[in-house]
């Protein structure tokens, strides 16, 4: 009983990074930019968050700086895909490797590795927190409670505003958007910056609020899982949130199993998030083909004077 209560209680904490990263990816990809760089940008956010936390010790500021740092680094990606029109797969991979190298280097040179920081205290959502079994779900740090609100805001932006309509038009059919006088490149740039900020926040969450320290490559493939999550959520924020909860559940279960004294080969247990990602991708792919929800121009660079 206790184990299940703990498990459920820990799930949101593990789900939030997936959710925020997936949301950032959706925002970018709805504008037609294939964003494979999430893994790298999360690392940048995580390192910047820890750096700020070590310097100022204010988690709010640290998270904001994590967002800003990821946005700044994503300018490099924007330069590659928007201005220079590099193949977006190559640009995304290069960004991941660049960020891995950069954060590994800075983390060591600045001696930020393995230094614990103080995170953020938990808030109890009384009276829900008194509920049996699921009470612990409502004792979380503030950002957990903020996450659904961020989702609401992004969904509202995408579906209920003219700006969102234009952004989606840029991702679906940039030629049409251009002929309608919308700045395709401008919208894509903003989408990259804003999406990367969310991805950076996801990284900052992991380092500042979750593990409370920095280790090189600490995101351990979560950025890639988020990329997969967006594919099987068919670019829908709410489905991505549900998927994030699923992965949160799985990750939260791992320490619970160990704590409960259930003896399983440790490294096989650690494989589960990756194996589940693969399994879900295969399951979704072998089901009924739901096409159409993928942005029509995802990954296609835009040039006006192309002769067809």
């Amino acid at each position, binding site marked *: 009983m206790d184990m299940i209560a703990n498990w459920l209680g820990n799930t949101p904490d593990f789900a939030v990074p997936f959710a925020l990263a997936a949301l950032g990816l959706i925002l970018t990809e709805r504008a037609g930019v294939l964003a494979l760089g999430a893994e790298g940008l999360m690392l940048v956010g995580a390192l910047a968050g820890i750096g700020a936390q070590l310097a100022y010790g204010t988690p709010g500021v640290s998270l904001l700086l994590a967002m800003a740092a990821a946005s700044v680094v994503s300018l490099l990606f924007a330069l590659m895909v928007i201005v220079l029109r590099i193949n977006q797969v190559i640009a995304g991979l290069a960004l991941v490797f660049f960020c891995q190298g950069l954060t590994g280097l800075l983390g060591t040179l600045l001696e930020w590795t393995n230094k614990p920081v103080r995170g953020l205290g938990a808030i109890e959502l009384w009276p829900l927190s008194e509920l049996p079994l699921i009470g612990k779900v409502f004792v979380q740090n503030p950002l957990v409670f903020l996450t659904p609100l961020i989702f609401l805001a992004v969904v509202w932006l995408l579906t209920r505003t003219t700006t969102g*309509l234009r952004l989606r*038009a840029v991702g679906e059919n940039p030629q049409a958007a251009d002929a309608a006088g919308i700045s395709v490149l401008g919208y894509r740039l903003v989408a990259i910056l804003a999406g990367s900020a969310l991805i950076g926040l996801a990284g900052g969450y992991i380092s500042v609020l979750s593990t409370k320290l920095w280790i090189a490559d600490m995101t351990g493939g979560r950025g890639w899982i988020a990329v997969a999550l967006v594919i099987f959520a068919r670019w829908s924020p709410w489905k991505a949130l549900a998927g994030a909860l699923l992965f949160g559940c799985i990750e939260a279960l791992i320490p619970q199993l160990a704590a409960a004294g259930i003896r399983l080969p440790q490294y096989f247990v650690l494989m589960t998030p990756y194996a589940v990602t693969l399994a879900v991708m295969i399951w979704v792919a072998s089901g009924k083909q739901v096409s159409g929800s993928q942005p029509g121009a995802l990954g296609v660079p835009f040039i006006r004077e192309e*002769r067809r």
Partner: protein
Amino acid sequence: MSTLNAIQLTGVSKSFDGFMALAQADFTAKWGEVHALLGENGAGKSSLMNIAAGLYAPESGSLFIDDNPVRLSGPRDASRYRIGMVHQHFKLVKPFSVAENILLGLPEQPGNAVRGSHRQRLRALEARIGEKAAELGFAIDPCQATESLSVAEQQRVEILKVLLAGARILILDEPTAVLTDQEAERLLETVRSFARQGAAVILVTHKMSDVKRFADRVTVMRGGRTIQTLDPQSVSIAELVRLTVGESATTHAHQPGTPGEERLRVRGLRSPEVGGHRVLNGIDLSLRAGEIYGIAGVGGNGQSELANALMGLPEPTEGDIELIGFGDLRRASSEQRRALRIACIPADRYGTALAGELSVAENFGVGQIHGGRYGSFFRLRRKRLEEDAAAAIAGFDVQGVRSLKQKAALLSGGNAQKLVIAREFSREPQLVLVHSPSRGLDVRATAAVHGRLRTARDAGAAVLVISEDLDEVLALADRIGVMNAGRIVAEFPHPADRQAIGKAMVTHE
């Protein structure tokens, strides 16, 4: 018609990667007139109008609106000057509703500055769309998704879009190409009355009849230059043809073939049902050796799907496609198809026939490589391949090949098509499947391509030509099937009555 100039372009030049699309073109349209811009494919009509609409930047030349020089830095500027263009390939965001699409193009001008939330703006716009549509006699539901609209309806949305954005200079790029005769007539009536109210309408077209019937003036373009502007009532169609083509085009008289035994039989060919609708809905046809069977019809009635199914491209179908003496043609691997000497000339040249990034020689040689002519799997006999390629290029008159290692993408449309034919015909075909063979080709290249198809037929091949160009079908076919809503609705032996075919093309059951 007033005498005031609405829009004037002078000395406009534009080139694409070394190819001169426009050379010192001049064009003037006045308020209150329908001005036709006439020319062959590739004459530069669309490029010139894309410059007028702010999409392309010219290398030289000037643009005047109301005799004032202006510069356009993009479509938004053009919209500010009340220039609106309906492109040949519609610029609609498919999953969006009609109202959402129109909202995208609405400039933020005092007249359009609708306050309130996004929803309120959409509601208000839907009402305006309703009014405007009623005014023009269009039946459009503003809440419908544009992807579920027919081509004619999508075009109406495009027209509503530019008019609601306040356009007074309306450019229509090949508007009748995708419409039935009746739809085209209604459209041209509508735009004429729009011009009569004082606007300027520019009609980009290659159809002489549209020009004769609806245009007040016509400017003829050829090879990137504007040749002449004249009154369409004062010239004959023959004269207009001479101006657009530049030489007296000899239209080939049809020469009948001598049909032999049956070679291909299609029975009950259907696509899977999607939303209660089948793109291919029971195609029956029979093709004999030594004849050309033409499939006519308005585009989008299942021609592409039929072509894909026959040419072995991915296309789910049920029913029979039987190659006599072999069996189900869909079962044949692409290597077997080669061995069976089936030649395919698809419509999308660089999408399915040629790899533009690879060399001319490679594009030629890949057609015969399976048979082992160029060595075993472990060895490629490049020298022999290049010799064969050189001989075929000479034999099929492919021009513009500076070197065999040159990228195929650098060939012009006509020469690329000749290269495809050279490859496909390199082993005397027994079955030739052709889709829109002269799309984008000039008169001379078209004649050459048609000649090749006739030669293949005379050598005993069974030839199937699918084309949306009725003139092409009439010029080639010994028998004509009319495709409408996914089936062959009528068959006509040669000589066929053009009117009857036209009627079968547009009649709906």
